[in-house]
């Protein structure tokens, strides 16, 4: 077996003399125009750039502040621990603070904003960087917030992302593409096509500058899309040296759906995206209301907020905004309750029915959220579920409060980001908000509800605890899979490898031997196959129910194990399928009989290697060969299937040379070879596999 794929050589080249600057990973080319994908997750800026400086953290149990030394940075940049074990972005490094302040200055210019679609600003402090700032749009229709009549847009103005721009934004395995706000997608597309954005970014990359995207309001959403686009292009090109962009948004509306968020987390990008939110800010929640009923409401809100319109900051808000605000609160409560039901383990069957009758927004928070609870504190959350809960519970009204006052406060909160320019450079405390909540006794209710400066209700604390618990549960599930299941899988694979080798010693392909089922070892192989199927089906089932962490499908070790499994065992499933002539009952293996466990593992591999989806079907070689044989046996002539035979030969040739396909298919007694020899002489002599087939 040639199982050499998947290792990584990394060369660390300091970009500048600064200690701890962005590291460069050079990846080897495997000789077939394919780059290996970097294995280590992209390091979040705050851990890469952390220096030996004193930073402040909040001591959570006592509530007292203390200063602690951060541990020294790891000696090798590659020895970074996986993202999940890192102390979540609970502390911003000093460099990060400078960058954030810098972004705030760009997003809230003192001079009136120019009319250009974005601004570039180059800086050399704290490190050479190029910041791209996107201005907000203040019009609801016409390319601003709600795409007008874009084809395929949902009730919330959402549309599928363009797979050529965002190939990773999908759920691997099931292949469902992510959805995002159609208007923002279109606006970003227009920027790419109609503005110097691409060339400016390329120039900055060539100058080895760190790329930063930022924006206020809808500009922040565009910045998020830009950052993901940038990460996509860099990783596809294999040039990950610049792939630590930094995205800082201020009061940005939600951009994408759950798949979007899942994909970003799977790729390890979520820590590059920092979303600053003033807890009461109305704007981030706007996508949670169904579009059809509220377009005028959104426009009224935007008009009120826009610095261009004369009625900026009048006394009191018009009635339409108050109505819209109540509508928004209710929609936000709906979606928060719906999600809470899911992660609290609600077993009620009515939940499924209700989703057909209640319009639920598809949008979910994505990236790291920093709630600006006061000028001294930031509540940091990386858990998307918890962020969604806070998006509602922060807005819950005080019983004495008038709705219109609440609406006005919520609207004016959208212009309360500017102080961040100053506060960032002073001492501001970051609190890992969910960490605080779950650090109390397991299963116990928090006594204080004002930790981290957020004052929320009892329901909110319960929902947040449940969100944290669910995240922990997923980690526990993963740990279980990593332990017992992994060992069992490896053992079974080892015995099947043994089986394959024994067959090859007899000049027989293990595929043919298994299909005949004559010997004891064929039987034993079948038992191993069944055991493995059970183990992998369990994993796939857990993934489908989202019971494993988002990053699971991007983990090198599991992707490799999955590929190993698929290449070794799928031929046995194919053999079993054709041994029982299931193709005559059900249809061909590829169209009807292929189990999910192989589809999933194939897509994991393709995603991690950044190769096009559906291109590594090597494990289905035998199924394609069987289908061709069956068609010829059923009376088709060679001419009818010539093109497919040629394609299969070419594919097999390529797979064999790259080591994805074993040598067993070309053994002299392999059923494929015997069938191939019955093909017309003229074809065979010109075939690319002619040299591989023994005489």
């Amino acid at each position, binding site marked *: 077996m040639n199982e050499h794929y998947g290792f990584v050589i990394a060369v660390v080249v300091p970009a500048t003399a600064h200690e701890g600057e962005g590291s460069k990973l050079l990846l080897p080319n495997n000789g077939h125009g394919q780059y290996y994908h970097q294995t280590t997750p992209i390091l979040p800026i705050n851990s890469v750039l952390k220096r030996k400086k004193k930073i402040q953290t909040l001591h959570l149990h006592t509530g007292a502040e203390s200063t602690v030394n951060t541990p020294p940075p790891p000696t090798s940049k590659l020895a970074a621990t996986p993202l999940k074990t890192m102390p979540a972005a609970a502390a911003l490094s000093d460099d990060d603070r400078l960058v954030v302040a810098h972004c705030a200055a760009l997003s809230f210019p003192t001079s009136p904003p120019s009319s250009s679609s974005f601004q570039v600003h180059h800086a050399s402090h704290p490190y050479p960087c190029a910041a791209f700032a996107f201005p907000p749009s203040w019009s609801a229709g016409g390319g601003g917030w709600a795409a007008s009549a874009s084809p395929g847009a949902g009730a919330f103005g959402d549309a599928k992302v363009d797979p050529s721009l965002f190939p990773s934004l999908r759920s691997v395995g099931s292949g469902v593409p992510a959805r995002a706000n159609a208007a923002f997608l279109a606006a970003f597309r227009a920027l790419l096509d109609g503005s110097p954005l691409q060339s400016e970014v390329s120039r900055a990359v060539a100058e080895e500058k760190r790329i930063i995207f930022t924006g206020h309001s809808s500009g922040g959403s565009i910045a998020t899309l830009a950052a993901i686009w940038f990460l996509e292009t860099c990783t596809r090109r294999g040039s990950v040296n610049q792939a630590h962009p930094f995205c800082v948004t201020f009061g940005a509306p939600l951009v994408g759906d759950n798949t979007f968020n899942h994909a970003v987390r799977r790729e390890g990008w979520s820590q590059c995206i920092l979303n600053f939110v003033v807890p009461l800010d109305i704007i981030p929640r706007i996508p949670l209301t169904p579009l059809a009923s509220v377009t005028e409401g959104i426009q009224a809100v935007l008009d009120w907020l826009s610095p261009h319109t004369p009625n900026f900051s009048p006394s009191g808000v018009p009635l339409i905004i108050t109505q819209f605000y109540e509508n928004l*609160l*209710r*929609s936000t*409560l*709906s979606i928060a*309750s*719906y999600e809470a*039901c899911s992660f*609290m*383990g*609600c*077993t*009620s*069957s*009515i*939940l*499924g*029915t*209700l989703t*057909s*009758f*209640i*319009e639920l927004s598809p949008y979910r928070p994505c990236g790291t959220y920093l709630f600006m609870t006061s000028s001294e504190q930031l509540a940091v959350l990386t858990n998307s579920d918890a962020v969604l809960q806070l998006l509602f*519970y922060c807005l*819950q*009204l*005080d*019983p004495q409060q008038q709705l219109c006052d609440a609406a006005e406060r919520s609207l004016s909160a959208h212009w309360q980001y500017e102080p961040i320019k100053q506060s960032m450079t002073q001492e501001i405390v970051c609190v890992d908000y969910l960490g605080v909540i779950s650090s109390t*006794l397991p*299963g*116990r*209710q928090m*006594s204080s509800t004002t930790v981290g400066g957020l004052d*929320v*209700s*009892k*329901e909110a604390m*319960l929902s947040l*605890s*449940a969100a944290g*618990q669910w995240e922990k*549960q997923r980690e526990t599930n993963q740990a279980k899979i990593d332990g017992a299941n992994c060992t069992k899988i490896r053992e079974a694979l080892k015995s099947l490898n043994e089986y394959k080798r024994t067959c090859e010693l007899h000049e027989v392909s293990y595929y043919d031997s298994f299909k005949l*089922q004559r010997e004891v070892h064929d*039987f034993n192989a*079948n*038992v191993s196959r*069944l*055991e493995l*199927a*059970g*183990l992998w*089906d*369990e994993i796939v089932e857990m993934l489908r129910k989202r019971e494993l962490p988002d990053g699971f499908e991007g983990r090198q070790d599991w992707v490799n194990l999955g590929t190993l499994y698929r290449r070794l065992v799928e031929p046995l499933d194919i053999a079993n399928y054709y041994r*029982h*002539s299931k193709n*005559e*009952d*059900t*249809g061909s293996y590829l169209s*009807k009989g292929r189990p999910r466990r192989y589809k999933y593992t194939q897509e994991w591999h393709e995603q991690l290697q950044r190769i096009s989806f559906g291109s590594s079907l090597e494990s289905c070689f035998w199924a394609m060969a069987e289908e061709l044989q069956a068609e010829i046996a059923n009376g088709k002539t060679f001419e009818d299937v010539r093109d497919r035979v040629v394609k299969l030969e070419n594919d097999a040739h390529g797979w064999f040379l790259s080591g994805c396909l074993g040598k067993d298919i070309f053994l002299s007694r392999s059923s494929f070879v015997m069938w191939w020899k019955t093909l017309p002489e003229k074809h065979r002599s010109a075939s690319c596999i002619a040299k591989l087939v023994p005489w």
Partner: protein
Amino acid sequence: MEDARGGEEENSMFETSHVLGALLASSPLLARAWDRCVAAADAAGGGGGGASPGFVHDGGEEGGSVYVAFSGVQAALSAAAAGCGADLFNPVGLRGDAAAARLFAPLVAAEPEDPAGGEPVAVQALALRGFLRLCGSPEFQMLLNQIRGKAVVFTGHSLGGAIAALVALHYLCTSSSSSTFAPAPPVLCVTFGSPLLGNDTLNRAILRERWAGNFCHVVSQHDVVPRLLFCPLNAVPAHIIIGMQLHQLPVRARRAAGVVATVTACMADTNQEALRQLIQEHAGAAAIEQKLATQETQGRSPYRPFGAYVLCSPGGAACVDNPTAAVQMLYATFAARCAPETGAASPEAAHSCYGELVLSIPQHLLLKRRLGATAITPAVSNYDAGISLALEASGITVEVMEAAPARQWLKTSKRAGQSPSLNCASLARRLGRITPCRAQIEWYKAAFDTNTGYYDAFKQRLSPKKFAKANMYRIKLGQFWDGVLSMLDTSQLPHDFHRRAKWVNAAHFYQLLVEPLDIADYHRSNLHRTRGSYIIHGRERRYELFDKWWKQRGFTGIATGDTSASTAARRSKFAGLTQDPCFWARVEEAREQTESAKSERNATVLAMMLECLHKFECHSSELVESKDVSIDVVAPQSSYSLWVKEWNELKLREEVRTILFQFQS
């Protein structure tokens, strides 16, 4: 001990009924449904009753949902005219009524055949009558055609809700039996303050069909109507339900109908406190009975809830979907009389407050409630805190007496909701572990495929070592599947377990592979002589059930593709397993019969025997020709091959040939 374990579990558990209630209440769904209910009542009252079809509908444009609201006014008027007899709320068996049996075919068909299996599916007479009258009207039939394929909400207040539930059931029955493979469009039934509709058998039938999630009953805390039918049939104050319904009529319409006056007068006479006592007593009895799981059949009301119940108070809503918990919460919320001002509200007001509730609950949910005093209680678990919120949402404050049992009931229902799916998951893992045993038997089968076939090898105990192993695996598999069935019998598994493709397929494969060995065992020990024929007297219950599952398999995809493909394309080689699980028992019977036919002198008896044999010959040769049998059947030394030889010899005889000639012509 048990508490400690329970506490451990509770750490990761969260109560969700109030969260689900918040989802329902925050959406515009309930308010929209209520608006239609009001419109339906207006239409029924304003039109003078006779001209109105009894329902209103709207929506459905551009893929939105259709709302159909039903009014119970007509049913109530006719009942009032008939004098409000107690028989209005008698249970009517659906099977007994020819029209109903047709309209609710899937519900009735799934009923156990023998009367000992429990009471038949029954619903209350008044609602059924109202529904049947609707069915007869052309407007209603037109409506059914119009809404086909769209997302529909059926709704109704009071008796109208009970009729809406019957319409929804009928609609589900027809869309489940329609032949289209497209997924059925979503259906939701929302009732407001409706009386109980059917008995526990109906509830179980709805669970089995997986329709419980399509029903949502909104009940306010002090409404008597949804709780009245817990009273024994002879004690049901029928006029209350009728009167409550008629109370909705606009005053001018009420004056027009004289009967209304009598009913309202009758209602005014009723002692409200006595009514409350009556309901509290019987709902309480029902709640306790659910807890003890004992069935007191004598004099109890047959009516039980089904679907999800949304228990509303002005402060929130809690949604419980477990029928047991629904009974208990219906009692607990009613009995928890805490705030005197709401408790003093008239029953009429409590029955017609839904319009205010659907508006006030969402507004209340947007407020941040601060529980200053109670929040101090130290270190409550998340789970307990959640239950407190759920109780509060349904109108039970922590201080009242009913809070403690209600808390316990909610906990029990949560466990009951979780355990079936957990059991199913662990069973799936056990199936994975037992599958190698099946592979062992496949291997055993393959060893004899070319000489005697595994049936005869097992029967004759050829190669004792292999036999002993195969026998052990046979017993192990049998134990596993018996275990599965006993879990299913005690409802420890999801109610749709026997409809899930994974399990039906696994059970079917197991049966086809292993039942021949059981048949061999039966005949080896000559049980067919002592007990009688295997097919009638010897089959294990599991095989009969698996047969039924396989025949009834309703899941789309594999199964349907399978049958259509196999009829279209013939097999090119023998099937992996013989498709008739009892094939070998038939062979054994045929061999016996052939043997006795050889010495049979009586011509009539002989003719009968030959007819049977001829039938079997047709059956078996058809199977063999279509290659629906496995290769072992036609193995040279197999019982079947031997029988074919014997049969052919017998056919050579003169008298046999003449008799057979008659069958063929």
